[in-house]
């Protein structure tokens, strides 16, 4: 069941599903940059942006399937993504982690 009341052929909230598809396409573009990226900084940015897209996809799926509890997961992903980026930037700057 979705909030719109209408039953659409996809079975879930259509606007949310469209937003999810847009985010997946954006993730694909970001991944192309992260894989091709000539410098390390392209890849760091790519990783961080892909993580943000993942957070948004999680939240959108949560609302599309009528379970906003998914926001817990989105928050956890956001924190972890931030931690990973900090660790990588620290490595780039100081060549060590300790």
């Amino acid at each position, binding site marked *: 069941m979705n909030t719109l009341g209408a039953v659409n052929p996809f079975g879930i909230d259509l606007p949310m599903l469209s937003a999810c598809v847009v985010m997946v396409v954006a993730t694909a573009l970001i991944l192309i940059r992260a894989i091709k990226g000539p410098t390390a900084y392209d890849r760091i940015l790519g990783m961080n942006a892909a993580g943000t897209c993942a957070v948004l996809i999680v939240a959108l*799926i949560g609302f599309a399937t009528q379970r906003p509890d998914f926001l817990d997961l989105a928050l956890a992903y956001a924190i972890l993504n931030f931690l990973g980026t900090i660790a990588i930037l620290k490595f780039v700057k100081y060549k060590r982690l300790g």
Partner: protein
Amino acid sequence: MNGIVVLDMALLALILMTAIGAVEVRNLYSAIMLSSVYSLLMACFWMTNDAWDVAFTEAAVGAGISTILLIGTLVLTGSIETVRRAVSWPALLVCALASAILIYGTLDMPRYGDPKAPAHTHPLYSGFVKQDIPKHPSGRSAADVAAYEAAHPGKSHGPDFFHGHVPNQVTSVIVTYRAYDTMFETAVILTAGLSLILLLRGRRGNPQRGGLL
């Protein structure tokens, strides 16, 4: 066609792309970042399949801890892969055979969401679905809640009185569905951590001499 299936296919395509990129890229540092992206996307995929606990674990371990651990490894090893080996045909053959056996094994599995699957017809399952498992020997089953509400008319149940349910879905899966699994997982992780501490003790300090961190 289910919308979630569309999303699943798109996510799996992205995951495949990331995995190939992580294997093919020659800079180990980039490979680590791609594997981190792989974990996050994989976690999204687990989540669309309703495997909350797995998604949480994948994000925490795959994208969080293992990225940091692998970067710690790079501190010790350097970030350029030196040897590029040609494709080893026997290894490729073994991999293909193992994959074929695994895929053959999945043919016996029930369809996704099949209500007649053994997991759903097991006598214990109805109890899990009702979620009237008391949290404590003192009760709080459905009958206790009914008695409480009969004794206190017009008054809502107090805090921490969840009708015997576990309020958080991840906690529910990990504590009620997978209690033994989680318990022994923690035992394994504790043992591994203790062994590592014993093995690496006294080698702290200069990474160049083999110490960690």
